[in-house]
């Protein structure tokens, strides 16, 4: 792999680590400027990542879906950008202590991981692959952010239930807002997941001449789709309020994580990631 995008990746990974430390420190510290600077550092990390992606795009002249690292980076980029926007919009500063360490570890992992893959096999190249991967990643980022909002909901709900309120609540929005965030993000992610799965199916038919159904990743992806789909149906019936909504968002993300991170390494699959 070219060294230039890697340098960007390393820089943004370091910035994410710095921001993580600041967000975590801001939980306990009374320094008023700290959350602001944490946000600024995280944002510069994200911009570095964006710049690296653009350089990568300029060098390869194709959407970067050749390797695990490309896809993971795209996911990282979307989650980071989405979170930073949400943080600003809804003042969920506490979330930074949750999200940024994950982003930092993720980016470091991608950096140190032995570079594999690279270009897609020419036989597989098709606009479908772009649609497929991009939609799945859009869905995964939305689900990841929904789970962040869900986790914050559970934290705040726990404080209110235990009647032991800490200063944490001053950097969290209210339960109602967090709940609406969870719902909105799942509603946003679900169509993307549907599109991603369908486009994957069409693509496989073009390449192999048959719908790819027996692949464990595909099976698990449909399970994930079912989890979120049932959740949406349940909300239609029951309103989608309260703790259950928040817990469901975490279960959904767990399914995504198992599929995305574990399954690829454990079983034989045609998916690179």
């Amino acid at each position: 792999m070219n060294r230039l995008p890697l340098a960007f990746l390393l820089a943004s990974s370091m910035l994410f680590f710095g921001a993580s430390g600041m967000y975590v420190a801001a939980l306990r510290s009374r320094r008023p400027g700290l959350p602001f600077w944490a946000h600024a550092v995280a944002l510069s990390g994200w911009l570095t990542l964006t710049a690296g992606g653009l350089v990568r795009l300029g060098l390869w002249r194709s959407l970067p879906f050749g390797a695990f690292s490309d896809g993971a980076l795209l996911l990282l980029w979307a989650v980071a950008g989405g979170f930073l926007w949400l943080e600003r919009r809804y003042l969920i500063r506490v979330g930074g202590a949750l999200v940024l360490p994950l982003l930092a570890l993720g980016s470091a992992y991608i950096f140190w991981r032995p570079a594999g893959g690279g270009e897609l096999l020419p036989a597989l190249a098709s606009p479908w692959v772009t649609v497929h991967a991009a939609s799945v990643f859009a869905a995964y980022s939305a689900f990841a952010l929904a789970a962040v909002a869900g986790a914050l909901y559970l934290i705040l709900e726990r404080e209110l239930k235990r009647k032991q309120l800490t200063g944490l609540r001053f950097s969290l929005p209210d339960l109602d807002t967090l709940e609406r965030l969870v719902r909105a993000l799942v509603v946003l992610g679900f169509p993307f997941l549907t599109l991603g799965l369908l486009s994957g199916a069409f693509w496989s038919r073009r390449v192999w001449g048959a719908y790819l159904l027996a692949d464990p990743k595909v099976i698990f992806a449909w399970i994930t789709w079912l989890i979120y789909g049932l959740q949406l149906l349940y909300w239609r019936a029951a309103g989608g309020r309260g703790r259950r909504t928040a817990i469901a968002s975490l279960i959904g993300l767990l399914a995504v994580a198992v599929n995305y991170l574990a399954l690829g390494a454990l079983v034989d699959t045609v998916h690179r990631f």
Partner: protein
Amino acid sequence: MQPWVVGVSHETADVSLREAASLDAALIPSALAELAAAGAEEAVIVSTCNRTELYLVTGDGRDAREVAREFFARRAKAGRETALLSALYAHEGEEAARHLFAVAAGLRSLVLGEDQILGQVKEAYRLAAACGAAGPILSHLFQRAIHVGKRVRTETGLGRGAVSVSYAAVELARKIFGDLSGKRILLLGAGEMAELALKNLADHGSLRIWVANRTREHGEALARAFGGEAVAMEELEERLAAADIVLASTGAREPVLTRAMVQRAVRRRRGRPLFVIDIAVPRDVDPDVHALDGVFLYNIDDLRAVVEANAAERRLHVPHAEAIVARQAREFGRWLRQRLADPVIRALRAKFKAVADREIERLLRRLPQLDEKQREQVRAVSDAIVGKLLHDATVALKRSAEQGRHEQVFQVVAEMFSLEAGEPPEESGLREPKGAPEAVRLRPLRPGEGAAW
């Protein structure tokens, strides 16, 4: 000239002494006039139920403390003069600034970090300014104080978290629901505390109010008083399923809301949170209700515990707030000391400008071909040169004043530029009660003197 603060507060005087010293807003203009007559060049009066403070700048060798003591002595109740006078505290200069900044930040308030005091400081300054009593020093002092008050509130958590039971209820409601407008509140009984909590809740959005009461007539009277709707006790469960907040304060001996009742309501709520505030003693709501999913039950002790925790949390922010106050007070002290250089700087500038103007006018008389616009340009250039020539000197003079080296420096400057020492005409910016440096003033130019320079 140094600003002084002399006053009494809840820290030094009991309520009867503070009563005597306190001044109604309507009385403040005449009090300011009284202080001016007693020799105060500038005066601002901060009077709240917890403190009455005079901020004074005096001229003509009048001691601000004396002016203030006489002022307070006239107000003391018969036989309590000595008690009031011994309760007075006084701070000068930078210390006075530190005191006012801390007051404005809420650091000296009975309830740490409360924000009414900032409005009261603003109002005190506005009144004094309207009466023409706040001169340059106190204006600067109070503007800085207002700035510090705002900064402490935004940069530290000193004012964060409710510190009264009824506000704690509001804060919790807002942490659960966010915006309160359109929320339905069910009142069970209505004591004084409930009324207060309701009023505070209604400040954050228009509520729909339902009042349930054992006696129909009483309930209807209460509903009218709160602008709500009376609800019969038989309808209670129905309303419980629809309400967002329940505020219970009946005098009943037995729980009015049992776990079974609330559980039935919760099943129909489809996960919507229910915030139950039980401020009745004995309690109106079965404590087990809190264990139900989506129900948050807070009784009076829980709310008090929240208040306690908030107060403790506020105390943690005191060092940071004090640091801001101290830094800003030092900054003000620097400004005060730098002001000592103002008369010298003014005299120097006036002299340079007089010389330059004289020469320029002479030159312009010899150049009749210049039109008015060109003449203005020439004058502007001359002013710019004077300004630039004096820039370093101005900075150096201010620095010397700030560092307390001004006495010798001013003498040298006065000697070098024939500035005369003497009583300045109106602005006695160099007089200080103790060890005041000699004031410096421009000696009037004799005819022809400027040209010979």
